């Protein structure tokens, strides 16, 4: 028998930062949206707002236009700081193309 040994070409992965910590629950929390302002986000994010506000007591889901929107703005540091200053417990990022 002939054995051909060869390298896996996919390369290694490094996790350089942890995922955002999870919330202990959604009831009573204040949630924001950061949207890239394309049509998918305009449909999906309002639906999530309706579902979350119906299913969790005391939750506040901010309107989709609370924070800067659009591909040019949602990834920059100013937007991140604005989200932090707002005091929301978490943000849901709606990004599609």
């Amino acid at each position, binding site marked *: 028998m*002939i054995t051909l040994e*060869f*390298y896996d*070409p996919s*390369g290694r992965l*490094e996790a350089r930062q942890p995922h955002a910590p999870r919330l202990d629950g959604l009831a009573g929390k204040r949630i924001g949206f950061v949207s890239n302002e394309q049509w998918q986000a305009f449909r999906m994010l309002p639906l999530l707002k309706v579902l979350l506000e119906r299913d969790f007591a005391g939750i506040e889901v901010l309107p989709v236009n609370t924070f800067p929107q659009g591909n040019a703005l949602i990834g920059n540091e100013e937007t991140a700081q604005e989200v932090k200053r707002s005091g929301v417990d978490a943000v849901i990022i709606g990004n599609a193309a």
Partner: protein
Amino acid sequence: MKNAVSGLGLAPDAAMVTFPIEMFLPGSDITPVEARKAEFYERLTRWKSEFAADGNGGSPLVSARGATFEDALTRANDLILARQWGDGLPIWPATRERVEWILAGTPLPREHALGTFPPRGGVATVEICAIALAMAGGRPEYLPVLVAAVEAFLDPAAGSEQLQAASGSAFPVVIVNGPIGQQIRLNSGFGCLGPDPQRPAGASIGRALRLLQQNVGGARPGVGTMANYGGLRYTNVVFAEDEENLPTGWPPHGTERHGFAPGTNSISLAFANGATNIRRRGAKKETPEEDALQGMHRMADFMRVPNLAGLAGYEHGTPGILMIPGVVAQTMVGLGWTKASIREFLWEHSRIPAEHLRRAGGYAWIEIDASKVTRESAALDPWPITSAPDNFILIVAGGGHPTNSYWLQGYSPGVIGREIRLPGDFARLVAAAEQDLYGAEGGRGG
């Protein structure tokens, strides 16, 4: 999605819920989303990553067994396709011996990291470049060009983070300047976009880059890359400028665009998503002046289309790469044209009337662009397809015949240059290649 997550440096096992809806289109019924809301809520609260890093070692080995060498090679190719590491064409399995041989082509240590490949975020080491080049049928003397191309590809200004995953079918174009082009037999003349059995370097280097995009970067069709069509992606585009036939006074592209000293081995990388031949020569008894002018109009007219590919590089990139043969460049210089006047003509005559832009919905795309310069260009009528004439890349390449020019439609936020680093014994590698590839049959064309 996992690619996108790991590409940001996060663990790749993202919290994920697939909603049970058909293709998400404007007007789609999205109410079925509610059926999976409990899972969605769970991922927002209790989910934890279980990713364990691959560690810092080199690439693992896999094996294929067969009764004969041919059988083992066939099984290896089957395995490579089953693991989604191939491109559908036969591949050289990257054995230890082959990879060690190719690594002789760089002065860099094999573990040296050039960056991370988007969108998946795999680490692009010199070793993984050699593995890809081995699979692509490459040789050690090609490795310096591939390494430089990977460095340019991963420069954030190149835009690869977006273009790797985007639907626009972008492919990298690598233009090589300096003596290395001839030394490794990169084509710059007839059929320079390939294939060419006498000058196979461009195909191997470009194929290796594509395999890196796919395997390290995770850009698999419909998963890591949403390219609708994906044209020219088997080998990308890798060729040399025809420096021997540059008109007097025309600097090599690497010098003009990136400031490298003439004679420097360098690459220039841009992205394109279209490629077409443009008929340049006249058909009857045009005077040389008429012939040149008509050819310029045909090229500019072809560029004057409101498909907005050039928006990606409107400010800092390029609307495209125009390739003209040396004989054409020299004739035009003899008629009084300069590189600057050619670019100026193309810029002026490819401007799009506002009415045409409006009816094609162009303004909506311009208005949402991230670049202020691009957004402000909406006030111009006719609208220039790029912010400045110098953004056009003008390359002398192609066979010595005046009939055609070639346009690689730019889709390129940046144009990135890199110097090519050679190992100390590069001349020995080139001599070995001449012997291996052409010695037995009497040399080039034998």
